[in-house]
């Protein structure tokens, strides 16, 4: 089972840690995160701002800021080690077989070059293609991501495009070389709500059509519910719960996940006029070490055992969570789940 999963895994992350040097001391942005993304599936990393989900994606792409250091027991793309790879080896993969879409389409494109230049260069670099061939591919993909009159768009500069169009361009750029894996870091957060839905549908559609593995980083459980196959919930730099999307929404186990879900209005369940849930308190400082459960200061079920090492519990073969409580006990405490 394990070996079969490993052979199908496009991305394997085992015990990944990212530490950032700060004047106040080392900040442990990512603390021992493990997961994999298999061919053709959509995996979501969910969590609130500062939980380390973006740092995880940057660590995978070797794009961490210089003040950050990455450690991992295993970090592999299609079986090839990324942790020990040279800059040239990484560059041969980036933009080619693994591509990334960023949160801010307004600033992620270079203002000094045309859309066409920026699309074409990545294909020419990795596929050693001619200008005409790369251009043809760019026109093709701009059409595919739903941009009208793609030939004219090629000659335009980023400032002439709206945010939604720019994000479509970013998606086309990620697709230029036919990647095995796309990492999308909050790809819809900076966009209008109506545009968000379009971009998300587009991304999910392309993922299914092209059989690409998609690692989607988001804080939005609504997005997760719509497109994820598997979900990893992150809190304070660590994964606190992992499950298939169906399992997670049917039976959220970790108190943090349940808190997140209670913040969402559910059609037919949440009555008009009632207050949505909130999670009291703030995320603990990640500077220095964290003993025991990082969520205990905000958890209504917290007790003495939470300060010690917390066990991993299994709700099913594919559903794990990190908590001192068994979920049955919590349910007995009268916690209503979403």
């Amino acid at each position: 089972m394990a070996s079969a999963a490993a052979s199908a895994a496009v991305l394997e992350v085992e015990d990944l840690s990212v530490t950032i040097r700060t004047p106040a001391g080392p900040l442990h942005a990512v603390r021992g995160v493990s997961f994999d993304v298999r061919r053709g599936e959509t995996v979501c990393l969910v969590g609130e701002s500062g939980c380390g989900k973006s740092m995880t994606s940057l660590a995978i792409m070797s794009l961490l800021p210089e003040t950050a250091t990455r450690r991992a027991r295993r970090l592999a793309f299609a079986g090839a080690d990324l942790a020990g790879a040279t800059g040239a080896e990484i560059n041969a993969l980036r933009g080619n077989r693994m591509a990334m879409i960023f949160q801010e389409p307004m600033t992620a494109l270079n203002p000094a070059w045309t859309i066409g230049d920026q699309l074409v260069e990545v294909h020419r670099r990795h596929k050693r293609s001619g200008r005409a061939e790369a251009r043809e591919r760019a026109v093709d993909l701009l059409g595919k991501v739903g941009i009208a009159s793609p030939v004219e768009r090629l000659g335009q500069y980023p400032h002439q495009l709206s945010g939604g169009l720019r994000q479509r361009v970013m998606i086309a750029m990620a697709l230029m070389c036919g990647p095995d894996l796309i990492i999308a870091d909050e790809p819809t957060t900076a966009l209008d709500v109506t545009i968000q839905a379009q971009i998300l549908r587009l991304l999910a559609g392309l993922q299914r059509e092209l059989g690409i593995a998609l690692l989607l980083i988001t804080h939005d459980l609504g997005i997760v519910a719509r497109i994820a196959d598997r979900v990893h919930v992150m809190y304070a730099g660590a994964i606190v719960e992992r499950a298939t999307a169906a399992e997670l929404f049917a039976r959220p186990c970790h108190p943090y996940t349940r808190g997140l879900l209670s913040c969402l209005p559910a059609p037919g369940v949440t009555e008009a006029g009632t207050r949505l849930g909130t999670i009291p308190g703030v995320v603990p400082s990640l500077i220095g070490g964290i003993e025991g459960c990082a969520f205990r200061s905000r958890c209504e079920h917290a007790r003495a055992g939470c300060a010690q090492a917390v066990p991993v519990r299994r709700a099913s073969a594919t559903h794990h969570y990190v908590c001192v409580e068994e979920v049955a006990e919590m349910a007995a405490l009268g916690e209503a789940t979403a």
Partner: protein
Amino acid sequence: MLLYALKRLGLALLVAAFVSVVAFLLLRLSGDAALAIAGEGARDEDIALVRRTYGLDRPLIVQYGDWLLRTLAGDLGQSLYFKTDVAALIADKLPVTFLIGSFSLLFALALSVPLGVLSAVYAGSWIDRLALALAVAGQALPNFFFALVLMMLFSITLRWLPVSGSDTWAHFVMPTIALGYYVTPPMMRLVRAGMVEVLGSDYIRTARAKGLSPASVVFKHGLRNALVPVVALAAVQLGYLLGGSIVIETIFALDGLGYLAYQSITHKDFPVTQAVLLLLALIYVLLTLVSDLLNAFLDPRMRVA
């Protein structure tokens, strides 16, 4: 782009017209020219005669119109001191000044762009600190002093270069360095600051995520965006270099425009002063126009006029 260029050109012409008024008025208001021409101890009748002969008794607006029309026709009048045609005088001196000005700018760019990029890419390293030290030393050193040091080293001790004159290319080496080193530090710091900012931007991260080579990331995606303020500064600096070469021209006995301006002012040779002033101002206007157009080429967002 064309519309933008036309608008910039129109603006430049307006500024040029304003500059011509200022150039004309400054000299009329800085003392009685007739008095200066007639010389000290001249009788009142002589001064009155001079005033009539040169048309200085007419209303200012008429004098200006007359002067402007003649200037546009290329007639800059006669030099009071050199007793020759002002246009010919300037045409004779301009090439020397223009040569050192351009060479100095090229020298400064050739030094400041690579150094600025290096110190930005390796920010905080010994290269960065060395470049900063050079910049501070460069700005602290007055150019007349540096010119003399160069002269002593290369002309007197090593005997590699001629001391002064403007006959061969070798004569231009030291003036170029002496004039150019002074504008290198601000340009280098600007390149560095621009590059540091640009290299931290999202689109550089995108370029890296695309697996582009480090050279392509730094030069294609980085430098072009960092150069916008440098181009603006370089144009202004060239104006400074042209106007500010008086000292260097004097030290190296280069018979250029700067030296001519100095002579004409000391001799109250107002047609020459006026012409040189106007020319330098117009060169400035022209350089600003060129820098605007270059910036529009580098940064497409500026093309919206």
